[in-house]
């Protein structure tokens, strides 16, 4: 026999429709339509009611406690109100603060076509007693073709005796209030820091040889303070620009960027009055190193600073400024070792890796020249463009002013002389009657008389 048959008989004997033993139809008993129990009898449930009351009381206590807590710890409110008010009321500041930032520095290395990749530029300008030049500088800013929202401006104002700070602040506010959002710049910071510099900022004392080393060191200090406070992890490029540049191409940022060099400077000249030859190389701090200069550096002591453009240190270095050809290719590049600070475009990674403007004697140089030297030391490319020129403002030197005064005096003397001559002639004319008119009158009379005499002679 199969075991299946052995176990099945009880299953086959199933008489009920439902497994649980109830029949499908009520079978007799208390009648077809009777329902047990016979009348509605609400069960008395004191336990349930008590529980509900307890819950209610608990809820009330919680709510009271909660309100008291709101009183005692005001900081709790910030988190709860938006939830309670369904975001109808804006949350307080604290709740909206962002404190964590994440940056990948590989994205801000700087490329040749930065404007397409939306690379940010930090434009740095150290200022001191610069109020007269500011309106011109802001004109240049407005004209820049690089997208303005990608340019962050940073200024360091220090030791100024004129209204540089207030003027700068006004001009910047005006700049940012421009109705065209394309004209508005990015982050704008003004650092106010006085270093207590003793050196005057007028042309003569600024460029005198004796004052140079000290002046360059304090300039370097100002530049470093500005950069270290303004450089952000978002910057791909840093552009240093003096405010007293008179003429520069609007596309200067793109033009310099296109070369894709770590540090790049244009040539800087300045216009001159005609009697001084019309134009002149201005920035002599961009140069190539020479054997003579290296030998000279060996002989100097640790703190000495070689400054270019002075007879005291004959370095025989090839200067970027002297190599200019007005008709040369503006894209021509030249490797240089020292750089001038009038207009430097550098990749931000140069500054991030630690290159700065030495405020001490670094390889016998300071400030921008030392910057070039240090960039070279860290194997960055440093390049100048001999035929791409920007023009620095012409500020007459004391000699020039003296010469101009002399010329002015000469001119005045000449004018006075001419005036005196003229006056003398007039005086002579007034004092002595000119006889010629009388002569003419007499001549006419005589001629008339002669005519009359002649006519009767003819008639007979």
């Amino acid at each position, binding site marked *: 026999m199969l075991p299946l048959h052995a176990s099945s008989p009880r299953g086959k004997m199933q008489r009920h429709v439902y497994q649980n033993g109830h029949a499908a139809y009520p079978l007799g008993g208390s009648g077809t339509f009777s329902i047990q129990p016979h009348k509605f009898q609400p069960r008395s449930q004191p336990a349930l009611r008590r529980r509900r009351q307890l819950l209610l009381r608990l809820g009330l206590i919680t709510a009271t406690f909660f*309100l008291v807590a*709101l*009183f005692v710890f*005001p*900081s709790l409110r*910030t988190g709860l*109100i938006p939830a309670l008010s369904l975001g109808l*009321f804006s949350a*307080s*500041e*604290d709740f*909206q*603060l*962002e*404190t*964590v*930032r*994440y*940056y*990948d*520095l*590989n994205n801000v290395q700087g490329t040749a076509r930065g404007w397409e990749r939306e690379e940010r530029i930090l434009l740095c300008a150290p200022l001191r007693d610069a109020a007269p030049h500011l309106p011109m500088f802001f004109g240049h800013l407005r004209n820049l073709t690089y997208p303005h929202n990608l340019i962050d401006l940073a200024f360091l104002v220090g030791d100024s005796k004129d209204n540089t700070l207030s003027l700068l*602040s006004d001009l*910047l*506010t005006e700049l*940012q*209030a421009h109705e065209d*959002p394309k004209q*508005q710049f*990015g*982050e*704008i*910071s*003004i*650092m*106010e*820091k*006085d270093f207590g510099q003793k050196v005057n900022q007028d042309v003569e004392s600024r460029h005198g040889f004796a004052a140079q080393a000290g002046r360059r060191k304090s300039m*370097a*200090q100002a530049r*470093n*303070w500005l*950069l*270290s*406070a*303004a*450089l*952000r*992890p*978002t*910057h791909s490029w840093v552009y240093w620009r003096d405010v007293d540049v008179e003429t520069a191409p609007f596309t200067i940022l793109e033009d310099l960027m296109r070369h894709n060099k770590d540090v790049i400077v244009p040539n800087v000249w300045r216009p001159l009055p005609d009697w001084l030859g019309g134009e002149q190389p201005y920035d002599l701090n961009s140069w190539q190193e020479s054997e003579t200069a290296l030998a000279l550096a060996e002989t100097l002591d640790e703190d000495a600073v070689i400054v270019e453009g002075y007879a005291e240190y004959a370095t025989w270095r090839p200067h970027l400024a002297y190599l200019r050809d007005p008709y040369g290719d503006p894209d021509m590049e030249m490797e240089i070792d020292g750089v001038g600070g009038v207009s430097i475009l550098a990749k931000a990674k140069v*500054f*991030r*890796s*630690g290159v*700065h403007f030495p*405020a*001490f004697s670094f390889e016998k140089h300071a400030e921008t020249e030392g910057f070039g030297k240090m960039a070279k*030391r*860290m194997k960055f490319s440093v390049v100048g463009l001999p035929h791409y020129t920007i023009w620095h403002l012409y500020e007459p030197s004391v000699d020039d002013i003296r010469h101009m005064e002399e010329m002015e005096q000469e001119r005045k003397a000449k004018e006075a002389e001419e005036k005196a001559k003229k006056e003398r002639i007039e005086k002579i004319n007034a004092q002595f009657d000119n006889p010629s008119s009388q002569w003419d009158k007499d001549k006419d009379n005589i001629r008339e008389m002669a005519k009359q005499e002649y006519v009767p002679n003819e008639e007979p």
Partner: protein
Amino acid sequence: MPTPRSLRRTNPITIALAAVLIIGFLFFILSSPSDGSSLPVSRSKDTASNALSPPSLPFRKAKSNERTPPPPVVHYHMNNLTTSSDPVTNRETVLILTPLARFYQEYWDNLLKLSYPHELISLGFILPKNKDGNAATAALQAQVAKTQSGPQKKRFASVTILRQDTESPLQSQTEAERHKIENQKARRAAMAKARNSLLFTTMGPTTSWILWLDSDIIETPATLIQDLAAHDKPIIAPNCFQRYYNEDIKMQDVRPYDFNNWIDSPTAKELGAKMGNDEILLEGYAEIPTYRSLMGMMHDSSADPNTEVQLDGVGGTTLLVKAEVHRDGAMFPPFAFYHLIETEGFAKMASRLGWQSWGLPNYLVYHYNE
């Protein structure tokens, strides 16, 4: 059986009282948080209004639905920035910078224990972009998220996390490999660049102090910042030690770890004079004895912890620097600077700028033991 009471039967005074109470509560809840002065933690002073702001400051998030106004013109009064011996009273901000290759939970726990007001502390981290770096970043971000959403008092003013490719990625970061003398120059040059990147991008115009704290410093006194700042020195380093199990005495013991804090010796100067321009003179290697006086060896547990010594070279494991030293240009040279590199070169460069370095031989911080 309670039946619902009809409104008519309720005393009108009760309704009026309830209404007054509700209005009072609503008024109180909705009005008071807006005047921030009543809040115990007032941060409005050091908050930027824009995402374009120094990373050392927190900023207000822009609302997505409104057109953002142009960034404002911001004045920073750096003349008023102080670095004094009592930084807490003067509300001086501290930026703690850490080049991070591996994340140690003990490091973070120790950081949280610092008793300096956290709302005056900004943190900066730089991590390499490799496998270890990714793991460390994930661990770090988890902890940062936890802390910055935790209790107000423990939150830091801001946290900046930077990632950067290291130029000479060393195959192995184990302690033995890292300290091989031939690897040192490249390793320390890369380290110097990482430190400079971190420093110059995170130092804001409001920062007063920089605390360099390596990621493997796992134990410091909670008052570290106050204690070091109290000496009012431009650059000051505590003595970095390491806890270990001493087999000789069969118990836990401490030993000096950081040998980059030293006072120069005539021997080292002579060695330097004979070296080529690009060569560096390293400390702590038996191959080149320099006979410099190492701060690690000056420790005396019974002596006054406030004893100061003037140093010529410093290490970066724990180092408190006045921000103006860095602002003047003192950085970590990634090249041979007077035959010194990284933190030791930094001390030299600072001294060229007129800033002296100091050490506290009897004030200890502890390094992780691998």
